[in-house]
């Protein structure tokens, strides 16, 4: 699934993306020099803690970064070869919800409370095709059935507040699929607000649908358990920078960046913590984004940090096929600087 087939261009290819926010306190560099690609049919997990830039990246892809105060300072985002940053707002609007769709953490706030969910899903068809009202509604019911909402015809008549959190998230997913050719689904913390038994149902549904519809998923999450169960490949971000990018098994077995390793180590559910009396932890906290210069942003918390790390952000190194990291002092020194 995640084999980087060199003959096939990636579905999404982000090159050197910089997103800044001009705030009253100064310039916040939320995403810095980001290169990221997603292949056809791949689930890429973008992982990191609050403020690392993972949601801003998603908003940049859909061009939903509020400008001002936001500013996509440089870079390109190629989707099937077209640079999304060059498209007009009108062209972008035809893409959103059809080829690129998004689901969010809190389905209650992303659904319109005054329309039934059937109407809201049908609206997507009506916006992107010239389907009639009745036909679009029937398609909406089909989609509700596809996302396994029981009694879909009846549920299509419900308003968002009449559904449970899990059902609302299913409705959101149905809406994201309401397109003749779904290409990329961006799922921003899709299960964070849900109970764990419901989370398992939604994750299973997403995996099934991905196979069935043949779409790619950009999964944004902070939960390494969710990553382990759903992703093909993982990109770890820290304070605006990508620090490691690897296939999922490879990252969990052989993390190179001390932050990626620390993030795995401090998860109570990770196998290495079985029977442990204390969790591995990363000392300190994420620095203020305003105060980060050219240094490695993790250098103030990193056990391996040296003057080199404080002098500048490292170049890309490779630990194996498709496994890249950005660190002067990786966990194992087998990596070859490129």
């Amino acid at each position: 699934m995640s084999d980087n087939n060199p003959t096939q261009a990636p579905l999404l290819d982000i090159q050197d993306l910089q997103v800044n926010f001009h705030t009253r306190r100064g310039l916040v560099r939320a995403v810095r020099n980001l290169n990221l690609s997603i292949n056809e049919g791949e689930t890429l997990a973008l992982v990191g803690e609050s403020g690392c830039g993972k949601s801003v990246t998603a908003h940049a892809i859909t061009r939903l970064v509020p400008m001002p105060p936001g500013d996509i300072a440089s870079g390109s985002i190629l989707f099937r070869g077209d640079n999304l940053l060059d498209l007009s707002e009108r062209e972008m609007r035809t893409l959103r919800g059809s080829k690129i769709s998004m689901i969010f953490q809190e389905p209650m706030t992303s659904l319109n409370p005054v329309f039934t969910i059937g109407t809201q899903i049908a609206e997507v068809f009506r916006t992107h095709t010239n389907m009639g009202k009745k036909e679009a509604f029937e398609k909406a019911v089909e989609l509700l059935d596809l996302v396994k909402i029981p009694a879909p015809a009846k549920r299509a008549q419900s308003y968002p507040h009449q559904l449970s959190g899990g059902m609302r998230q299913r409705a959101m997913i149905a809406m994201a699929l309401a397109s003749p050719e779904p290409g990329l689904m961006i799922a921003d913390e899709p299960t964070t607000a849900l109970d764990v038994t419901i989370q398992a149902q939604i994750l299973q549904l997403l995996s099934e649908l991905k196979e069935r519809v043949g779409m790619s998923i950009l999964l944004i999450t902070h939960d390494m358990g969710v990553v382990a169960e759903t992703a093909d490949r993982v990109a770890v971000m820290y304070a605006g920078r990508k620090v490691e990018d690897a296939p999922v098994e490879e990252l969990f077995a052989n993390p190179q960046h001390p932050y990626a390793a620390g993030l795995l180590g401090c998860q109570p559910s990770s196998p290495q913590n079985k029977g442990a009396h204390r969790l591995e932890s990363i000392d300190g906290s994420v620095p203020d984004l305003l105060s980060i210069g050219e240094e490695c942003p993790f250098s103030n918390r990193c056990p391996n940090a040296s003057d080199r790390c404080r002098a500048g952000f490292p170049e890309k190194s490779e630990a194996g096929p498709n496994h890249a990291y950005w660190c002067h002092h990786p966990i194992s020194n087998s990596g070859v600087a490129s």
Partner: protein
Amino acid sequence: MSPTETPLLEARGIRKHFTINDDRGPARTLKAVDGVDLSIQAGEIVGVVGESGCGKSILGKTILRLYEPNDGELLWKGEDLTAVSGPGLKAMRRDMQMIFQDPFSSLNPRKKVHQIISQPLRVHKLGAPSELTSRTEAVMREVGINPAYGRRYPHQFSGGQRQRIGIARALALEPEFVVCDEAVSALDVSIQAQILNLLLDLRDKHGFANLFISHDLAVVKFIAERIMVMYLGRIVEQASKNDLMAEPLHPYTRALLEAFPVADPSVRHKKKQIVVGDVPSPMDPPKGCHFHPRCPLASEKCRNEYPPLKEAAPGRLVACWAVNGE
């Protein structure tokens, strides 16, 4: 747990019901906590795990009498806690503290940190002003906050540091019992690990008992010695951590464990048995065993009668007809 020892805190048949009187028809009863037994020994960490609406937070607040229980007994070192009030209750509360989920709303934004932490000492009139300062600084050092920051306000700290301040406030009185209500749920995972380690270090040093309430099974499994699983107001299973993890008995516990994402991609292809359906509304729980509509083992009896919490194996309590038989 030797049965001869008086538990630090014991609850018998605790019930907390709320009357919901809104404009959606006649008044209804929400049985948030519906007959829970619980006992905690000195220094023990007991985890309570369950999904939203299962009543775990209300349980935590009710045993501290932040909510008055509708029914049931609460014994603090063998003494009836429900009978005391006024100064007696205040004196008892010195030994019971709480750490909250949200480090933003649980600290007064208009007070400086040293005032927040020393407030409990002042409320209980412990120590002269000079002593207050030294005690406040000592407890700040213990939780890893530089005492020089005492004159700052809560908003000047990060979420993790604020949670440390909340812990310092709870520990200032050197309580014997602390309720942690989702104490690490709002924190990023690297900070969560710091706080969990800190709680364990402080427990080892001061020996307080801890009722650790969380929806996160991985966290509870890490920190607790004994685990209680709650579903719609009742305890469905209770066991030592090792027993529960080795072999969960109640179908709901099994479902929870199965649903929980494991941070290990090598086990993902094992086919999961995911429990179907939603958690029913606690306002209108299913008749009989509350879990029966989602349970793969449900029988006719489960649909009609709630199973009692019975000993299924030494030290293990389960409320399930399929496990306990008739």
